[in-house]
């Protein structure tokens, strides 16, 4: 009877849509990674970069490509995709479209770690990674530990509320401690603290990228188990549980994965605003709400988005550079307002 009506609008199978989504967004991300290192305030030539006749030490183009640009673009890709993925997961986990990687305090923990390293002049190196990123990651881990402990302490009942409350409390507490640490800093350290908080993708070497890949890789494994579950949980815990979802376990996986990804991203580049908040929304406008599409699309789009923002940041007022966080805020702020107005 009504099948005839439905047949007029045949539904494209999700596997086909998934294939298309990955293909399109993957291409965009790939092109961004490929072309961005070639563009910048200094013109360079690809032929010169790979010119074997010049020794590396004399090849300015090559050094700009391999030291100044490529690590930067890769950092943008990693940070952009990690923050976007974390944003998607936090929004589903907390059942709140306004949630972001910053909501539960993991980002604040990472910032606190960095502030402490800068203010107290910590100076050590772990697997080729210097004190500030290491301390930053430890800070994010600490924040995660507190939030995790708070939410695990409550076995039954509405864990979302406890999670949110615990996370927001941790975020506020850590922000207060950050302010205190900044107060202890002398003038030059305060200056460096403030600069760090603006975010910087100019990593200039590969060890920090490889180090960041470890927690990010672990988080990707966690994310891979989540897509359908996030759909179900976002409708309600009870419904999800009644459909066979081990809600507690998946919530833990989601929390830890999203926090690892956020901690690694902030440790690598400092806090970059708005990426985790608006990329999921933009992606949902394009592919719909199904998390099996939204997760991979957000990872790829987040990478391309941040690569693009960084490109603008480093060319728009050349020879000076803007912190990338300013570009993401300039784009993200109005987009976010527009999204809010659209909803009402």
């Amino acid at each position, binding site marked *: 009877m009504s099948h005839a009506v439905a047949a007029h609008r045949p539904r494209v199978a999700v596997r086909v849509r998934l294939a298309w989504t990955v293909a399109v967004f993957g291409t965009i991300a790939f092109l961004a990674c490929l072309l961005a290192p070639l563009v910048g*305030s200094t013109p360079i030539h690809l032929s010169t970069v790979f010119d074997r006749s010049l020794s590396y030490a004399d090849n300015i183009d090559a050094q*700009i490509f391999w030291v*100044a640009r490529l690590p930067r673009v890769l950092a943008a890709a990693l940070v952009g995709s990690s923050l976007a993925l974390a944003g998607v997961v936090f929004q589903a986990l907390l059942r709140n479209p306004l949630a972001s990687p910053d909501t539960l305090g993991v980002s604040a923990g990472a910032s606190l770690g960095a502030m402490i390293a800068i203010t107290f002049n910590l100076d050590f190196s772990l697997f080729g990674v210097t004190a*500030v990123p290491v301390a930053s990651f430890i800070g994010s881990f600490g924040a995660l530990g507190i939030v995790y402990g*708070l939410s695990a302490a*409550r076995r039954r009942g509405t864990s979302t509320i*406890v999670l949110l409350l615990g996370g927001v409390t941790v975020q506020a507490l850590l922000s207060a401690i950050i302010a205190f640490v900044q107060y202890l800093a*002398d003038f*030059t350290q305060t200056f460096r603290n403030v600069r760090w908080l603006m975010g910087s993708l100019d990593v200039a070497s590969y060890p920090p990228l490889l180090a960041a890949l470890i927690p990010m890789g672990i988080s990707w494994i966690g994310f891979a188990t989540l897509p359908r579950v996030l759909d179900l949980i976002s409708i309600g815990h009870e419904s999800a549980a009644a459909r066979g979802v081990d809600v507690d376990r998946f919530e833990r996986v989601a929390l830890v994965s999203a926090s690892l990804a956020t901690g690694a991203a902030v440790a690598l580049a400092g806090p970059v605003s708005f990426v985790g908040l608006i990329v999921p929304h933009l992606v949902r406008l394009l592919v719909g709400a199904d998390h099996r599409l939204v997760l991979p699309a957000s990872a790829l789009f987040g990478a391309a988005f941040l690569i693009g923002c960084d490109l603008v940041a480093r060319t728009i007022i050349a020879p000076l550079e803007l912190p990338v966080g300013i570009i993401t805020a300039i784009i993200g702020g109005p987009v976010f307002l527009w999204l809010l107005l659209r909803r009402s």
Partner: protein
Amino acid sequence: MAAASKILRRVAIIVALVAATSVTADLKVRTASRMSAGTVVRAASLATTGSRADLQVGPTRIISLVPATTEMLFVMGAGNRIAGVSDYDRFPPEVAKLPKVGGLIDPNVERVISLKPDLVIVYDTQTDLKQQLDRARIPMFRYVHRGLPDITETMRALGDRIGAKDAANAAAARIEAQLSAIKARVAGRPRPSTLLVFGRDAGALRHIDASGGYGFLHDVLELAGGTDVLGDLKQQSVDVSTEMILRRAPEAIIELHYGESLKTERIEDERKVWNALPSVPAVKNNRVYLLRGDEFVVPGPRIVIAAERFAQTLHPQVFGR
């Protein structure tokens, strides 16, 4: 279960209160900073009136919140008239025995007033403090710092203010002569384009903060026979990317380190960090210098030492190192 949520609720309330208090405190500071300049002028005229009354004697209980002016007072022979200094004062050694009253961001107003000063040297930007001193009718000297010439100009003004005019002028003249001498010695020599680094992450080429062509350190660099490689940007400090460094290709790199931030055993490792940019002439020709010292942070009488060290670094031939 109920107990845990009760505790959690209490924690949340306490944290919210703390956050709210810090926000309102911050708002208070911000609002105070927007006070008009009218108060400052009034305070300055008050100060002048105060000084005219006892110009022969001059203030004897001076509080200096600015390390630079503390050093200036000592140099003009008024060290024994200092009643209090800032937390960041480190030179000369005598300041260790003096009471500390806070710094630029956090002056301890109660402590200042309790020391019964007859002159307080404040930063021009410390609006809140100036207001409070104004209300307590304590005379003030406003310290403003910009470029190299302001150092001796401030010394003269301060000397005039405290009744040590001759000593101050003599000291200022001495400094100017020493600086001119340095300038003369490097005149005519090739001026290397120099990247003057104020700070960066330890062990990495990240968050590099460098001179952008404005301010007293830039002036000292230029006087000492170097050209600021970022001089055209006309900024006090610039967050410089590795791409910009590669493009500008400075012939010399001077990194400044103050306080305890660079230990001797780390100097070589920190220098090697720059080997990531081998095409930069400074790296190629081994002209990366790491200088430690407080004279680089204090725009006071010791600026001469800073100038000498810059000149020695950039022109060792002339300075016989």
